[in-house]
């Protein structure tokens, strides 16, 4: 079901964290939402998949698209484009889902596209200024720069376990 593109990414993900990296260098998976480019810690990424049949869930916010069957596990899927009102919330064979493994839970995240895996040193990361990103600044850990690109680095764990994501029961949030 997955295209070779995902497979090459998945290979990169599998490699990340296993190979020796220099001190201070961290790897980020980059994805696009509208015109902005974001990066998440690759150690939180489990895999990348194509769009699957999603079962809708009653009484859920519109950005929670529903649940999918990920090899027997029921996994909720968040459409980040709807959540942050960015990009076109279309579903076709190019739609990409990043499966994250955060706080011992598995969550799927639909984005416009996955770019690549980038290595950033501490010097390349600047503190986030107060600026008008679609994502609340408290979830942004910094801005990464590489050549002419600018990455918005997101604390995906904090973002996904936040109360406004409605992904967990209140007591589960408390336990985090």
């Amino acid at each position, binding site marked *: 079901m997955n295209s070779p593109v995902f497979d090459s990414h998945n290979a990169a993900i599998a490699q990340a964290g296993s190979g020796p990296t220099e001190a201070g260098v961290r790897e980020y998976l980059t994805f696009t939402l509208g015109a902005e480019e974001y990066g998440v810690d690759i150690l939180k990424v489990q895999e990348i998949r194509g769009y699957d049949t999603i*079962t809708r869930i009653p009484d859920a916010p519109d950005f929670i698209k529903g649940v999918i069957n990920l090899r027997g*596990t029921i996994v*909720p899927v968040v459409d980040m484009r709807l959540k942050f009102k960015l990009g076109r919330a279309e579903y076709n064979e190019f739609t990409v889902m990043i499966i994250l493994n955060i706080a011992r*839970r598995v969550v799927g995240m639909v984005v416009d596209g996955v770019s690549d895996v980038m290595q950033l040193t501490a010097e390349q990361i600047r503190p986030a200024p107060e600026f008008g990103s679609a994502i609340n600044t408290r979830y942004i850990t910094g801005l990464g720069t590489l050549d002419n690109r600018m990455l918005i680095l997101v604390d995906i764990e904090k973002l996904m376990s936040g109360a406004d994501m409605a992904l967990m029961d209140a007591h589960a949030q408390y336990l985090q």
Partner: protein
Amino acid sequence: MSLDLSRFHQTFFEESFEGLDTMESALLRLDPASVDAETINTIFRAAHSIKGGGGTFGFTAVSAFTHLLETLLDQMRSGSRPVTGELVNLLLSSVDAVRELLNAARDGRPANLELIAGHQTALEQALANKPSSSAPAPAEVNPGTTSAPAATRGWRIRFAPQAGLFRSGNDPLRILRELASLGSLSAEAQLPEGLSLAEAQPEDSHASWNLELLSSASEAAVREAFAWVEDECELQIAPLPAAEARPALTLIQGGKTEAARDETPTPPRARSGQDRRSAGESTGSIRVPTDKIDVLINLVGELVITQAMLAQTGANLDPVVNERLLTALAQLDRNTRALQESVMGIRMLPMDFVFSRFPRLVHDLAGKLGKKVRLETFGADTELDKSVIEKIADPLTHLVRNALDHGIETGAERLAAGKPEEGVISLRASHRGGSIVIEIADDGRGLSRERILAKARSQGLEAPDSLSDAEVHQLIFAPGFSTAEVVTDVSGRGVGMDVVKKNILALNGQVDLASRPGQGTRVSIRLPLTLAILDGMSVAVGEEVFIVPLAAVVESLQAHPEDVKTIGHSARVVRVRNEMVPLMALHELVGLEPSAANDRNLCILIESEGRKLALGVDDLLGQQQVVVKNLESNYRRVPNMSGATILGDGRVALILDAGELVRRLQPAVAA
């Protein structure tokens, strides 16, 4: 020495608690009138291994106390101390003391020393009471590891059969076994020197044996074992001198006393732990953490889904061209199902798991209440999923307590009512279809209609006289209800039948109660066999599929448009055989668009907690067994849904929670 023993503690505690349970049930089986040596042995073995473990792991309090217990048991086993009811009670309470010691050791808290000291004194006193008969010294614990008492005489036997032994239909092994039944046998086999496998004839007997039999059997008895082969072998039997060195090869261990006819009667001997155990005690098991089994069950669930996907794809293939593939698919189908059944079977435990705790409970409570009660259990080997069994234990305990406390009358009352003095409580488990039915029945006074009604009114419940008996009986399931005139130590502590009912409903079960004044009460509980698999009816709403638990489905029907009435502005009811049932369109409930063809008024009538509800659906797809998956592990609770499952095509379908649906809708409809 840096060996860390603490990692074995958990196992020690688990095994010890199991051992205590074994002791307890065996003690309750022990009948002073006819003592079964094997039962005493069972108790002794359990005590012995607790003592051993306690010593090894440094729980000296446990091993010291158990040692006293063991000494007492040893005397009972050797027959030097008669088994009396008092002794059994003393041992039962000592079991409690050991349990307290073990609990304390496990939790790392100081034990209740007063309690222990009391029991210890009682045990010591019992031990100080010299047994009346002067029987011989206690039998050895394990004939295989301890050397035989010097007094035991035995026989040295040289047995060299002729080559043609087999051809006359004899088997040396059979003879050796017979000898072993006379006492402790050790054998040393010899092959002729220079015998090569190439020359050896498979039909010839080549071996000869040097045997040592530690037994009190007479020479005649030993000779009898060789009766059939006497003229076909070289046989020498000589008495064994005392203090003989241990033989090289121990073939068979074990002891039996029947053969010792012409000697002084010997006490019942211990059978060693390894050789002979009654079938019920040990059938060979391994200890596996449940999460490993859960992983296995999940994987098999996956396999079943993959198999269903393959079958769907295969159905579209040309059966002539792909004959072999389709045959293989059919075989895969059978194998997968068989695998699924066996894997689900791993989680199944016999009801005995729960039932076994009741003899003690009844014994103690009946004593406390001064009643004579006999407990009968039937169908203890009926199997039930572990998760269900764990959750059913408390409600059952409550029901048994209730039956003892409120149901069974005192001896005098029973005699006055013309009943036998001894009351009977029976526990019965059986499979019926895909469910298990557990019945708790007593032959006591039954429920009193007047008292229930009076009590209900005093609690502010609506209880008109016109209620049928069944409806009156249902009142006792109301929260906070208790008819006991006196709140006793045993029951009536505020936790009532409502909790029992709630627990059982939470397991997708049902409770029924039948009672006749003066004749007794019977509570029957119907439960699904497992919580991991659910019989469901799949229904379509728009593009989605939902599963309705079959247990809640009363019927499905196509309502006539004139039977559907609107009340107020939105509430609707449907008439089903002159009964008005609230109607709710499932697509509204789950916020989906109905499909275009939704003019057929298809309804599923569900019932839960005595309330009915009609669910309007687009289509009925069929019945199927589904593997229940938890939504909370990665997401959160979804209102009106009890879980999710994966359909044959790999899609996720949500499972409706019938109880929540009727509860949620009731106020809206009533308003």
